[in-house]
């Protein structure tokens, strides 16, 4: 096995393990074992339970799956939007390109997490857990594209001056036909953007959750589990409260170690 595929393999193993844990009969992230709140590791609860007696391993597994699925979907949406906007700006008349890039700069003029927090707080905070998860990742997807679109725009500008594009334009290819030819050639640029967005979105979701603006309870999320660390009384009872943070850092390290070359 090639060493560069190791992070991806480990990540796939983690996802498989988490899926198996969530799919186990009787495993539920919301089930409360009221007899055993804040329990240590036992056979029944291998990573202990939280303050409400919910199995920590099942919750961590579910949050891993939810966070990865949400981040992947948001990243795909962001990359698609960035490809469309960037290609449009690169091949459109100068005025349109200037306007599109101005809008991108307006988004980029605000720090990413601040912008996220502002938009997320403008949306309903008392939404159902499933809605809050959808809203969180939709907000991430909707705000993540400008930086990526700028990169695509620069790549597109370079391609616009390429000889084969000049030849195609001289041969009378229409705009829509040109875009169809150009987009596949932007893939080497889009794949790294997609892979860079995934860990960024996972981190953003965790940060939003820690500020109380993320996914609502009882759905498990990294941010929600970080909030557990705020309760110092829990920390003296069990060391397993650190388990979600440790796993989150491992997942992020693996995501960042995935080779980004196309």
């Amino acid at each position, binding site marked *: 096995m090639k060493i560069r595929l190791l992070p991806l393999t480990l990540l796939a193993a983690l996802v498989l393990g988490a899926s198996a844990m969530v799919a186990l009969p009787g495993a539920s992230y919301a089930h409360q074992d009221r007899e055993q709140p804040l329990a240590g590791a036992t056979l029944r609860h291998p990573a202990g339970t939280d303050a409400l007696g919910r199995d920590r391993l099942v919750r961590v597994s579910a949050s891993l799956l939810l966070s990865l699925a949400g981040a992947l979907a948001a990243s795909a949406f962001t990359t698609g939007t960035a490809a469309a906007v960037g290609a449009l700006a690169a091949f459109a008349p100068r005025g349109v390109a200037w306007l599109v890039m101005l809008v991108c700069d307006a988004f980029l003029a605000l720090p*990413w997490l601040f912008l996220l*927090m502002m938009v997320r707080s403008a949306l309903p905070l008392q939404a159902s857990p499933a809605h809050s998860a959808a809203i969180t990742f939709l907000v991430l997807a909707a705000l993540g594209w400008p930086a990526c679109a700028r990169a695509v725009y620069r790549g597109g500008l370079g391609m616009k001056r390429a000889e084969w594009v000049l030849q195609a334009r001289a041969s009378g290819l229409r705009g829509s036909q040109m875009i169809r030819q150009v987009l596949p050639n932007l893939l080497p640029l889009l794949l790294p953007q997609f892979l860079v967005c995934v860990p960024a979105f996972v*981190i953003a979701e965790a940060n939003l959750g820690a500020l109380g603006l993320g996914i609502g309870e009882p759905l498990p999320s990294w941010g929600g589990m970080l909030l557990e660390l705020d309760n110092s009384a829990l920390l003296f009872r069990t060391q397993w409260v650190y388990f979600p943070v440790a796993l989150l850092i491992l997942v992020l*390290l693996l995501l960042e170690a995935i080779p980004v070359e196309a």
Partner: protein
Amino acid sequence: MKQLHHLIGSLARALLLVLLVMIGSTLLVRLAPGYLSDAREMDAHYGNTVRAELSQEGARSHSVPEMLVREAGGWLRGDAGVSRQFGVPVRKLIGPRLAVTGGLLLRSLLLGWALALCAALMTSLRRQSGIVWQAPATLLLAVPTAAMATLCLLAGGGGPVLVMSLLVAARDFKFLCRILRQAWLEPHLLQARAQGIRMGRLLAAHVAPAIAGQLGALAGLSLVTALSALVPVEVLFDVPGLGQLAWNAAMNRDLPVLLAITLLMALAVTSSSMLSGQPGEWESA
């Protein structure tokens, strides 16, 4: 003359960006589904009063252009509007916190840059030591700011400055490393090193001037990184700065306060990128 035109163009673009941010933020907050709602509505003691206040607010903010004019008027008067939550001019809320946040940002950026520069210099000069610095930098980048702040709080060591400077250092280290490595590979520097000229002299006379432009651009990015970390750090460490105020305003839909902080951040980012983008041109102008 060309430089002046460029400067005027950059200024006009920065102003346009700030204006766009203002319009966008106002629209966003006004059209938010929860704009005319307040958590205090649930409380039997405050419910009726809050509902009356919200209905007045609804009547006042019925037209978005009027809202924009009112917000802009607040800025022109110099008080930046009146806080919906506290009922005082926003300037009074922001003033004392600006100093706190400014101090925090300045100390964090200085410490972060000092750490990143030292590590990048050592790595660029001695390749064997690369892993010693790269491993912690990679690890730090994989830790969400909120988690880092919480762990620092639990460990009882380190404060907001340490968290923000570590974040800035980890992010800038990789860029600085790349810039310095490229700089050291210049043929005239290889020749000078082979002739045994002292590193300090080479750094001061050749490397620093050559990479000044890139360092300036990186400084602009560092500010954005630090500002991004501001909200979780100030909220978790209970620092009475702008980040905490922004979080509080966002949770309570306090539009004037949120708008004022948003504009300040947009101003800081656009002016820093404008200044850091063309230091060479400005020097020679």
